[in-house]
Every structure is written in C-alpha cells, then in structure tokens.
C-alpha cells in the first residue's frame, strides 16, 4: 500500500516537473519569437540584384521581424510568372518597362513603384592591363577601335537593360558597325560576365556590381562608363495587387527606400 502511494507521489512529481518544463518552454518560445503579427513577404528579384537582396532580406528580418522569402529569375521570366498567377508580393525588376506592363495589366498597386537601384555599366577585361581608367571617351574608342581581340561581349539589348545601355554606348561612339563581327551576346548580364571572366571574350560591357563582387586578384581592369553615354539603368520595384493588404510588403519597400539600405546598395556597385 505504501509502495503504491510512493509510486503515485513520484508520478505526480514527475508530472508537475514535466508541466513546469512545458510552461518554461512555452515562455521561452514566446520570448524568442519575432514581434507579434509578423508577416511573410515573397519577393521576386531580378537576377542582377541577388547578392545585395540576400543581405537586405536578412537585415529586414532582423529589424522588423517580418519574413522575406526570395525568388530569383530574369525580369522577363518573373513577369511571365506574375501574369500567370505566381504568388509574389513584391517585384524587383531590372528595368522600368516590366513594372509598367504589370501596372497596366492591373496586377500591381498603382503608385507603389519606385527606383530601388541604378545600374552602372563598365567596360571590363579579365586581364589587368587591357583597359585604362580614364575620363575621356576617346580612350575607350581607341581600345575598341584598335580591335586587337576576337570577341567582344555584351548582353542582348532586346532582353537585358545592361545590353540596351551597351548598345547605346557603341552607337554613340559610332562603333556599332566596326565591332559587328566580333560581338557575342549573353542572354543576360551574368552570362556576358562569364564570357569575359573565362577569357572567351577579351572585353565586354558588364555591370559594376559584378566586378565589385570579385576577389581583388580576379578583378582585371575596367573602365566606368560616364553616365551621360547611356540612358540610365533604372531598376524599379513595385508591390503586387495580391499583397495590397500585406503589411510586410509595404514594410519591405519602405525598408528598401531607407537611407541605410540605399547606402548598402551603393556599396554593391549601384548608384
């Protein structure tokens, strides 16, 4: 009988202990959880902005407690997915045109669009002595006109905003015809970058942000094209209709627009 009682007591004790642990765990969970009413925002990000956006998303989560999930792709593919019902909340395009199209189709919140980054075009070679950084466009002309190379890489102007910028630089320097037989085109700026990095193309127009990302030993030589040589590469962001009442979506666009993040974006090679 006494044994039985003992058993019963020990059972009660262990039950109480378990309950205590349970409560403690619950309290701990509540403490470590993000602020109340945390929401999730699914962001469609143009490929050229992958690296900065990963950093920004982490900072955003730490600061606001909202969750930011990222999906990457070329702006064109993301646009096609959005028009066919992809569940994105915010779209970071690589240009203005695709954002305008989405607004025109009534799929985005009108007036929520803004420029989150401006791309900078550079003439780049993987070799350290191929391009000299000077102020004059004549020097650039000289390097390209000399034509001491087999291939010259740029992004396809029809598909990539950096390609369109490269095309207008060539047109401005009146080099379009003389370089015609040497031009190879990447379908996006990442592929163009690969052509030059692997040495298959001696020179190419790429994005400054891509070179900034390299180790110093791999940076080769580049020349920052003056901004008045090409139409600005303005990258637009917009909130999609489906997220018009998602507080995390507007929080993210506000965060992107804040001074601290603008500074961060500049450090990645954007204006």
């Amino acid at each position, binding site marked *: 009988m006494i044994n039985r009682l003992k058993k019963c007591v020990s059972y009660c004790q262990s039950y109480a202990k378990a309950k205590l642990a349970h409560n403690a765990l619950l309290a701990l969970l509540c403490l470590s959880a993000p602020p109340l009413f945390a929401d999730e925002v699914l962001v469609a990000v143009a490929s050229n902005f992958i690296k900065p956006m990963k950093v920004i998303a982490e900072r955003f989560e730490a600061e606001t407690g909202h969750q930011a999930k990222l999906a990457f792709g070329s702006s064109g593919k993301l646009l096609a997915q959005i028009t066919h019902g992809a569940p994105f909340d915010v779209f970071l395009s690589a240009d203005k045109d695709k954002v305008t*199209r989405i607004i025109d189709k009534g799929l985005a919140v009108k007036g929520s669009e803004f420029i989150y980054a401006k791309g900078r075009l550079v003439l780049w070679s993987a070799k350290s002595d191929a391009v000299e950084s000077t102020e004059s466009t004549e020097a650039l002309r000289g390097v390209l006109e000399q034509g001491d190379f*087999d291939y010259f890489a740029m992004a396809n102007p029809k598909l990539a905003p950096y390609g369109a910028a490269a095309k207008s630089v060539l047109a401005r320097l009146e080099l379009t015809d003389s370089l015609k037989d040497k031009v190879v085109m*990447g*379908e996006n700026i990442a592929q163009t970058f*690969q*052509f030059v990095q692997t040495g*298959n*193309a001696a020179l190419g127009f790429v994005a400054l942000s891509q070179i900034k990302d390299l180790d110093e030993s791999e940076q080769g030589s580049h020349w920052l094209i003056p901004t008045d040589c090409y139409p600005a590469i303005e990258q637009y962001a917009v909130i999609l209709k489906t997220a018009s009442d998602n507080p995390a979506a507007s929080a993210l666009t506000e965060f992107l627009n804040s001074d601290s993040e603008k500074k961060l974006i500049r450090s990645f090679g954007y204006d």
Partner: protein
Amino acid sequence: MTLTSADYGALWLTFKVASLTTLILLFISTPLAWWLATTRSKWKPFCSALIAVPLVLPPIVLGFYLLVLMGPEGPVGKVTTALGFGTLPFTFAGLVVASCIYSLPFVVQPLQNAFESIGRRPLEVAATLRASRLDSFFSVVVPMAKSGFLTGGILGFAHTVGEFGVVLMIGGNIPDKTRLVSVQLYNHVEALDYAQAHSLAAILLAFSFLVLLLMYTVIKTPARIRV
C-alpha cells in the same frame, strides 16, 4: 504565322548543325558501340558511365564547363589554339563539337543494344564460311543492326535539334552562326514577343512529332509479344 528572316536563318542553321552532328556521331559511335558490345575489358563500366554522363548533367552546366575547357585558358582551348584553329566557343564548329558530346549517348546506346541482341551465333556462322572479321561486320552485323542505326540516327538528330542549354552557354547568340532555333525561341519569350514564340514553337513541335512518327513507321519491329 509571322516568321522573320532571323527565324528562318535559325531553323536552317539548326538543321545544318543537327545533320552534321548526326553524321559525325554515327561514324564515332559505330566502333565505340561495337567495342562496348563485345569487350570483356574491366574498363567497360567506366567507359559506359563516361558516355552516359551528358544524360545526367544539366545542359547549362555541361555548356559552362565546355566554355571553360574550350576557352583560351582551358586545356582544350590551348590545344586548338596551338593547332591554329583558334578557340571553339562562338563558332559553328564549336557548336558541332559540343552537340556531339551532348548527343553521344543517344546514338551509342541504341547501337550497342542492337549489336548485343545479334549475339555470337551469326558471326560464328560467318566465320565458318571464311568471312573476314571486317567482311562479316559489314555484311552480317550492319544489316542486322539496321534498326539500331535508324533509332540512333533519329534520336541523335532530334536531341540535337532540341538542344538549348549548351548552345546558350557556348553559342554567344550570333545570327546565322550560332543562334539556333531553341535560342531564338528563348529570345522571343524573354523579349515578351509571345506571338512570334508561339509560331516558332509550333514549327518545332510539328517537326519533332514528324520525326518520331517517321521513326516508329520505318522501324517496323514484328510483333513478338502476343497477349
């Protein structure tokens, strides 16, 4: 149907690359498949696996490594440059070489299967009739493996036509030189010219259906299984 001259150029170029690749592959694959079908070498599994690798590797990845290998800094690129051919990426020849690697398993494997299914017996009979090895290969093996050649040829051709990732990586999108129909189609889609993309896709779809229909019509295997 609103096809531009660039679309027709891409179609014609694709046809040229695919035909040339198929011819080259039939030449390379015949001895290779014969060796695989007859050898007892311990290297056989190794070689079979190596040939099948393009089946597994995502084409973009394969294309990227070909770009690195055949570029001026890569080992293959250094050899081709030393031989005076220059580097292969962004050239028609480069596309054919890459397509051969990409489509190799599609030609080797049907051939190997066809050779293996012949068995030893017909060759032994040919030998008793004093046929030399070469003679018995051409007058016994080749006719008996006809369906293998047809399947391999058609599959190699069709697979090369549908090739995308490799071409995208090493082609460089040069009109009439390396811009094949799959890349042209992709350009239309990315540029949001959907109408143009649909026309080209329709042609590609009709073509592939016809090729497969041809394959299954020509290769009339007698019904061996009766239920």
